[in-house]
């Protein structure tokens, strides 16, 4: 999937920073241009943008798809005032940008659970699940929790399964999910130790991991984004989702209006539309904000809280500390 994305280097009206853009899209015919940078695949947000320009005929949305690290670097380097909204699924980076004062207050007052300081607003959630190939490991459907999974994979019963998960050293999302797993459950290291006894591979992206499970290359993929899995189910009968009972993580997709945005009113209007019933209806059901309350099987969904505590994950010394432990567990031969 990522291989399909063509890397484009476009020098926007920035003083010194060149944005590394993965895709550039226009929605609408209006004369007022609202520029949004975001990590989401355009196909995910396009219906919402289309709904917005449908009710705001004078607007056209200019969407620049970028990686979360690019976004972070670009904001810190000083964004052009053309950019009116910053959307990202890297909630830790987003929180740190807001903590460091790069965002402005939103006009509307939102529910405390949806926002931090009324500057960073949650637009959608991305639940995280574990998937496996039913043909390769039929018994796995009965597993209810991470402890049970560890127990099941730990014995002599099964050996040398192909298991994959995000590489926290490469993927920001993978790192964040591992840190949150640790916060939820100290036994995460033990689970990793069990996984590591098998044929354990680290991966960059959800898409690749799903491909591997569908093809049978991998038996199990721990922590993949559910919204990428769901569309594949129809064409992959052996692909099965495992929703644990202990807890299910979810990553909030968040947005803020940068301080220097020159069209903050329009950006606010887009945010209001995004969280409105109409806007949410245009998202795929599994990422809507109300998915947290919905009964979708498995244990409680625990979206990562939008809190400034997330900035400690990004701290270099904390990263070092994590990886020294990680390397001790995972990379020992």
């Amino acid at each position: 999937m990522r291989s399909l994305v063509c890397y484009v280097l476009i020098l926007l009206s920035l003083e010194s920073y060149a944005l590394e853009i993965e895709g550039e899209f226009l929605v609408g015919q209006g004369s007022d241009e609202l520029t949004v940078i975001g990590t989401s695949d355009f196909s995910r947000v396009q219906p919402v943008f289309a709904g917005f320009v449908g009710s705001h005929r004078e607007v056209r949305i200019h969407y620049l798809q970028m990686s979360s690290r690019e976004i972070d670097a670009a904001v810190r380097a000083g964004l052009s005032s053309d950019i009116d909204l910053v959307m990202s699924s890297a909630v830790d980076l987003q929180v740190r940008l807001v903590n460091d004062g790069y965002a402005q207050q939103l006009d509307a007052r939102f529910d405390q659970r949806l926002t931090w300081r009324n500057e960073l607003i949650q637009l959608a959630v991305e639940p995280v699940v574990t998937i496996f190939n039913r043909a390769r490991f039929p018994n796995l459907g009965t597993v209810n929790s991470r402890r049970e999974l560890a127990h099941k994979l730990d014995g002599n019963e099964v050996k040398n399964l192909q298991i994959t998960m995000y590489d926290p050293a490469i993927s920001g999302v993978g790192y964040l999910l591992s840190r949150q797993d640790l916060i939820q459950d100290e036994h995460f290291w033990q689970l990793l130790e069990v996984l590591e006894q098998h044929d354990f591979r680290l991966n960059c992206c959800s898409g690749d991991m799903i491909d591997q499970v569908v093809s049978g290359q991998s038996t199990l993929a721990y922590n993949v984004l559910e919204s990428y899995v769901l569309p594949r189910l129809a064409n992959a009968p052996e692909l099965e989702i495992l929703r644990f009972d202990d807890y299910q993580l979810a990553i909030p997709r968040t947005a803020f209006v940068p301080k220097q945005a020159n069209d903050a009113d329009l950006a606010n209007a887009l945010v209001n539309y995004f969280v409105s019933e109409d806007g949410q209806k245009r998202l795929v059901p599994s990422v809507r904000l109300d998915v947290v309350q919905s009964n979708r099987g498995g244990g409680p969904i625990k979206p990562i809280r939008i809190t400034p505590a997330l900035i400690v994950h990004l701290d270099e010394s904390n990263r070092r500390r994590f990886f020294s432990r990680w390397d001790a567990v995972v990379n020992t031969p």
Partner: protein
Amino acid sequence: MDSGWSIRGRLFSLWLLMLIVVSLAVYWSTNAVVERSLREGQDRNLQAVAQVILDSAVKTDATIDFELPYQAFEVLAYSAPERIYYAVFLDSEILSGYDDLPLSESPEQSSYGEIYRGESTRFYVAGKPIRPGSNEQFRVVIGQTETSYQKQSSTIAAWIAFAVLASFALLALWAELSLRHALKPVVAIEKDLIARPADDFSPIERRVPSEVVRLVQTLNRIFDQHRGLLQENRAFIAEATHQIKTPIAAILMRAELLEREVEDGSRSAVKDLIIRARYASKLATQLLMRATLTYREVLGARDQVDIGALVAGILRALDPVAEIKDVGLVGNNLESAEFIIFGDRIALREGITCLIDNAIDYAPSLTDVEVSVRHDGGRVCVTVMDSGPGIDQQELGRAFDTTKRSGGHAGLGLSIVEKVAASHRGELMISNREGGGTRCDLWFATS
């Protein structure tokens, strides 16, 4: 008497002033106290986080290993939606975090406030030597903005100030009610006094609170004095009438008898005696009249008086006097509903009588004295005109002087008229007529 201010108004402004001052003071002091206590709580939270990091520090070969605890930061983040900053130092070398945090001015001071990135921020710094006795310090700085704490304290202060304001307003209302209640007996006395007729000098009998007993006693004493004075005055007038008029009448009678008996040589002297006795009689009458008018003025008896009808009655009464002098009395324009004024009937009758009587005295035989009434600009005017000698320019101003007399006539007449005019908010104007004679205009206000 014009009242420039009211007790209630003054009390209200004093009260309002105090209310404003007290509310501001309460707001200011509450804000300071609450802000301080919130700040202490915030400092304790910051201290806890700094201490946890400090305690996690472990000396390794190369450097120091420590952990920034997610949960501790989370607790801090839960307390308020504020920005959080941190920095970890080994001596002056930064190991992690924000490298531009402001440091405390003195090493002993662990909590301090600074403006950081444009926002008021609290900081806490904690440190310990990396090993016992070492000079190298491991230090942790935790910062948190305090906007919402400040907002919270000013909100609390505003509520408390509002509560104070409200209770003071309630107190003010209560004070107003109490004041009204307390002043009730005074108001009752005031009503009594207003309703009392002018010649009623009986003491106030109402039961009054101890605070106003002295006031009422004083009033009663003044009433008593006035009643005594008036009674004395009345007695004096009655006495004087009797004591003065009787001997003069006797002298006059004797003089008239004497005139017929004396020889022609002495007759002119007796005639002079008679004229002087008559003058004395008239002067006595007028003096008593003046005293009576003063007494009536004190009484203040008033009712509706038709000046036209009054003048007509006076003309009828004076007709015989005029006839003796061969003077014609002519009344013009005496009937109109507009001639009604509010005044003392007896005083008015005496005043107008004096004026006409005076004119008859001055009028030469076989001339007319013309009397007319008119209404002009809310006033009623009685005009008396004679064809006598008129008054000298120099004497116009002295006409009312009670000590002067002119042409052998008693001088008190015009001063009585003047007095009646003054007590009816009117005036007397005297002028000389063209072609000879005097014109007197006596004005009265209608109400």
